[in-house]
């Protein structure tokens, strides 16, 4: 029996027919050994999912494998007739997908869906009674109370639970290879930690190999034994994880590391990869990365680099290594932000006090209000001039609603929002309209934040027009200025949004927000739809603009690494309330609230050295329609006490700037004295 479980040779998959098909996978070679976790890393559109679907022969109708050889344990998969392939699919190879929400059939119970997989692959003798095996599988993936759960439908399960069910389905055929396509991308960090742990445990017990497809360097570092980096349809580097995280070889891999936002880089600009991934519907003459590479030489543009083997299962596709000699890549010296170190918080620009946004729940014959979804339930925040306050939390905690409540896009139910000393919640729509220019917003999805039917110029101009700023000619000049300021050529004004890439679109959105010369910009996850390299470009831009115009940001995000890089102050939100806030150093380096601690510990990091202990949270965040009595966090809290069940902990001020709501944290309410105390570790 060979050590190699899966061997792919020169796989080419094209999508679409016609004169210019997209060569999504363009000559991929790789080998996966038994029992190892092999990570396929790459940015969106690089062909990693298509590689996985090609292995499973589950390509969408427009896709086709034009060339190549795929061998699972000696069986040539691409040559199998469909009937035989069905036995391999879900048998020796299982697959789980990115979107657990849509990947399960909504009208079948999860028991039925698992049983189906069991029936196909179980030996005939036991086929009749799959129930026992279904329960075993549910137990194996850590679903509590499986007897009840088998009769439930997917919509009754949380996202993490659905992904566990997906894993159970994949396990039904006792696979030797589990293909996991971005299995945790749609999940929150604490849930991601649970699922990754589960996969690790299962792998250990069953000795199966995992092909993990992901864009997240952190996830790779936490799980993988070996790593392959994919770029524009090709693999550019394969290395053992330790080597890779110690010293990545390909310039692209290195750039990926450098563009990661991290606390240590706070005072520096992030190193970005300029430009975008090239479109794959054409021939390449040189290296596909050459246009974006700092180290590119003339030959990189002329000759495609060959695969250079650097050791057992190691290699790189780069001219720099072609001679066999190692190359030392010098990282560019970090560029200091001129004003960044000195920028100190001025007076408070925006202050919310006990801000509440409740959505009524109607029920019964006459739609009486029987309760409220307490999306935001008493949030007090202060944003100083020229500073960035990050609002961190998992999906559904109400952080986006806080942003919209502050901007009065959703009128708050109660509480105050003072902007520049003026109370916004009492203003009429008409009075608000004039003041809106001071507060702008940048959205998460650059696709939906611009009207696809408008020209970029008109999009940027819209706000100025609404606020009656200047005359037409002046506004036109200013649009040009703004576009150039965010790094978009001025002729873009006569084009439509869809002609730009995600990162460019986000820049245009920034320009649109800047047009009104606001004092505050609410950034609602502005980089989470973007690839790492593009994310770095936007973060740099936001940093520069803050330094230049003294802007304040309310930065809403779930991404701790961005927070550590960008924010001055952090507020951590859980179920509609802020559980801890303080300066970024205080909160990130010494979290006091057990939720903050768990959240931070669950974030996968690329630093192999720092072996931190992940604090596991049980279950999911409860519904804001029916928050638990007492401390909202107590049902999941590892250190909950009796009092936590009955009363919500008051805010305790610790030191000058930090406020925590936890009974475990001793500090005096509203006082500045008191030691950091016996915070649980």
């Amino acid at each position, binding site marked *: 029996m060979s050590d190699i479980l899966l061997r792919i040779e020169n796989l080419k998959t094209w999508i679409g027919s016609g004169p210019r098909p997209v060569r999504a996978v363009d000559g991929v070679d790789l080998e996966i050994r038994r029992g190892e976790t092999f990570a396929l890393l790459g940015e969106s559109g690089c062909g990693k999912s298509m590689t996985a679907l090609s292995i499973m022969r589950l390509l969408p109708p*427009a896709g086709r494998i034009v060339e190549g050889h795929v061998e699972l344990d000696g069986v040539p998969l691409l040559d199998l007739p469909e009937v035989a392939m069905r036995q391999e699919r879900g048998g020796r190879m299982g697959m789980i997908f990115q979107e657990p929400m849509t990947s399960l059939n909504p009208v079948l119970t999860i028991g039925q869906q698992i049983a189906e997989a069991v029936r196909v692959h179980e030996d005939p003798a036991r086929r009749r009674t799959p129930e026992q095996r279904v329960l075993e599988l549910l137990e194996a993936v850590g679903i509590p109370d499986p007897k009840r759960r088998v009769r439930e439908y997917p919509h009754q399960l949380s996202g993490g639970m659905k992904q566990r069910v997906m894993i159970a389905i994949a396990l039904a055929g006792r696979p030797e290879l589990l293909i996991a396509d971005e299995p945790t991308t749609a999940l929150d960090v604490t849930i991601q930690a649970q699922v990754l742990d589960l996969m690790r445990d299962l792998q250990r017990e069953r000795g199966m190999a995992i092909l993990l497809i992901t864009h997240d360097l952190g996830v790779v570092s936490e799980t993988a034994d070996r790593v392959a980096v994919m770029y524009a349809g090709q693999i550019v580097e394969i290395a053992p994880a330790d080597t890779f995280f110690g010293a990545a070889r390909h310039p692209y891999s290195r750039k990926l590391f450098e563009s990661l936002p991290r606390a240590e880089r706070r005072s520096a600009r992030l190193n970005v990869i300029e430009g975008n991934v090239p479109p794959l519907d054409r021939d390449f003459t040189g290296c596909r990365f050459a246009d974006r590479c700092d180290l590119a030489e003339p030959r990189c543009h002329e000759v495609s680099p060959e695969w250079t083997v650097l050791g057992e299962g190691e290699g790189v596709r780069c001219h720099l290594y072609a001679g066999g000699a190692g190359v030392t890549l010098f990282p560019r010296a970090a560029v200091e932000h001129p004003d960044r170190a000195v920028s100190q918080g001025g007076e408070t620009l925006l202050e919310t006090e006990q801000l509440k946004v409740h959505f009524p729940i109607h029920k019964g014959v006459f739609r009486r209000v029987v309760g409220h979804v307490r999306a935001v339930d008493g949030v007090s925040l202060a944003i100083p001039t020229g500073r960035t306050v990050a609002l961190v939390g998992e999906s559904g905690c109400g952080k986006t609603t806080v942003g919209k409540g502050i901007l009065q896009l959703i009128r708050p139910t109660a509480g105050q929002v003072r902007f520049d000393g003026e109370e916004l919640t009492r203003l009429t729509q008409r009075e608000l309209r004039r003041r809106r220019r001071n507060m702008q917003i940048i959205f998460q999805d650059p696709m939906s934040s611009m009207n696809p039917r408008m020209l970029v110029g008109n999009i940027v101009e*819209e*706000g100025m027009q*609404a606020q009656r700023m200047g005359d037409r000619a002046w506004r036109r000049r200013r649009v040009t200025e703004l576009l150039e300021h965010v790094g978009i050529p001025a002729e873009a004004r006569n084009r439509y949004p869809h002609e730009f890439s995600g990162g460019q679109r986000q820049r245009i959105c920034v320009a649109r927000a800047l047009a009104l010369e606001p004092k505050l910009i609410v950034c609602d996850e502005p980089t989470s739809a973007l690839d790492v390299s593009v994310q770095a470009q936007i973060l740099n831009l936001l940093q520069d603009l803050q330094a230049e115009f003294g802007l304040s940001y309310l930065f809403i995000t779930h991404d701790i690494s961005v927070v550590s890089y960008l924010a001055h102050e952090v507020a951590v939100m859980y179920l509609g309330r802020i559980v801890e806030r303080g300066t970024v150093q205080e909160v990130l380096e010494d979290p006091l609230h057990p939720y903050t601690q768990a959240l931070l510990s669950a974030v996968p990091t690329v630093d192999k050295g720092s072996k931190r202990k992940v604090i596991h949270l049980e279950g999911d965040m409860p519904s804001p329609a029916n928050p638990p009595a007492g401390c909202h966090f107590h049902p999941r809290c590892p250190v909950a006490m009796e009092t936590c069940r009955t009363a919500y902990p008051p805010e305790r001020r610790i030191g000058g700037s930090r406020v925590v709501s936890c009974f475990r944290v001793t500090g005096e309410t509203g006082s500045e004295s008191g030691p950091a105390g016996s915070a649980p570790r």
Partner: protein
Amino acid sequence: MTVQPVILWTDALVFLLVALAVLFAWMARGREHLRAPWRYVARSRVGMASLVVLAVYMAIGLLDSLHYHPLLPKAGDNGHGPRHSAEIVSLFDAIVAPLRERSEKTYSAPLAWRLYAKESIERPDGTVYRDYPRLKYGGAHLKEPAREWGPDIRRRMALGLVKAAVIWAVVAASLALLLARRDGIPLSVMFGRLARGETAIPWRTVLATLGLVLAATLVVIELAAGYHVLGTDKVGEDVLYQALKSIRTGLVIGTLTTLVMLPAAILLGIMAGYFRGWVDDVIQYLYTTLSSVPGVLLIAAAILMLQVYMNNHQGAFNSLTERADLRLLFLCIILGITSWTSLCRYLRGEALKLREVDYVQAAVNFGVGHFTIIGRHILPNVLHIVLITVVLDFSGLVLAEAVLSYVNIGVDPSMNSWGNMINSARLEMARDPIVWWSLAAAMIFMFVLVLCANLFADVVRDAFDPRLRNSRD
């Protein structure tokens, strides 16, 4: 001035529709997002083929929408200058005047030279015998019809085909010349590309369809000069003429109905979705109530009431034509009332979604007013739905006209329409041998129009709704 133009209500609306289409095309020229879907349509073979056929129908319909009072033939020079007839005819009537004027006595089969039923004929010598009498016009030029009829038909068909071939060749050559000049390539290369179907716009398909249409048209023209190509009906009217005249009725019903309903559907639908609250409640109540009355019954009730009204106010109408035209318009309105609710409901849903979309939120945050937001952000993003609805509804409405006319709640009985043709022909189905040609003519004309409309609508929908296109892979 030799004629006195008359603009009927439906004429005015038809030309308004044409003007709107031209305006839209002019607007779309500079806007990529508007042009791209149409480019998809222009590159679809099915779309272009059906468009050619539809264009023929539309040309006839438009010609038939230019109405006027014709000049009376010299009715004595009494010093009043030219006098106009009270009759209203259209430009199309003038073009096909022979068809209109050559009435026979009663039924005759397609291409026949004698009547369909035997009659008692008196010989010059006074004896009476029963035979099929010769037609006044159909085959009147034949001296010995029994012998000459076959060759004459064949000769005319061949002549028609030859003429069609000549015209087609001219069209094809000039097209090739134009394309070759535009692309700057030799004519011979362009011919090659056309023949192999290698042009972006499927000109080969267009030319092939055009060839078929030309052949059919010219053969019919040649035959019609001497015969009733589709026979005659009970009162001896040419069936081909009736079928051609019915085109306008079908087109008017198919297009004006949606035109009439659009303003209400768009305005109310978007308002309901955008403003929500009590506006939404009122509009929803309105369309739920209207849509809960089964359409046919509402139309029946409304048309009955219209009949009562028209009977009691006969003085209000100048002529039968105007009266029939108003009834047609009213039928469009009432059909519109029964069909706007589904579009309204759909647009409400879209507006509900769009108002939460980020770019609308951003506009609100800029302080942009509500109606500007609706006009700038909501309306342009639902227009493709409106367009898809318009083209999809068209064929259904043409079919509905036939059924409604059959039930006597459609267009005025005096108006030419396929429904009326079928309605009057069905009684003849009981005859033996049966009179089938009225029915067949109406069915074929309707089928071709509806089929092309359906095919075209499919292409348009695929073009404007890419989500659906993908699901058809």
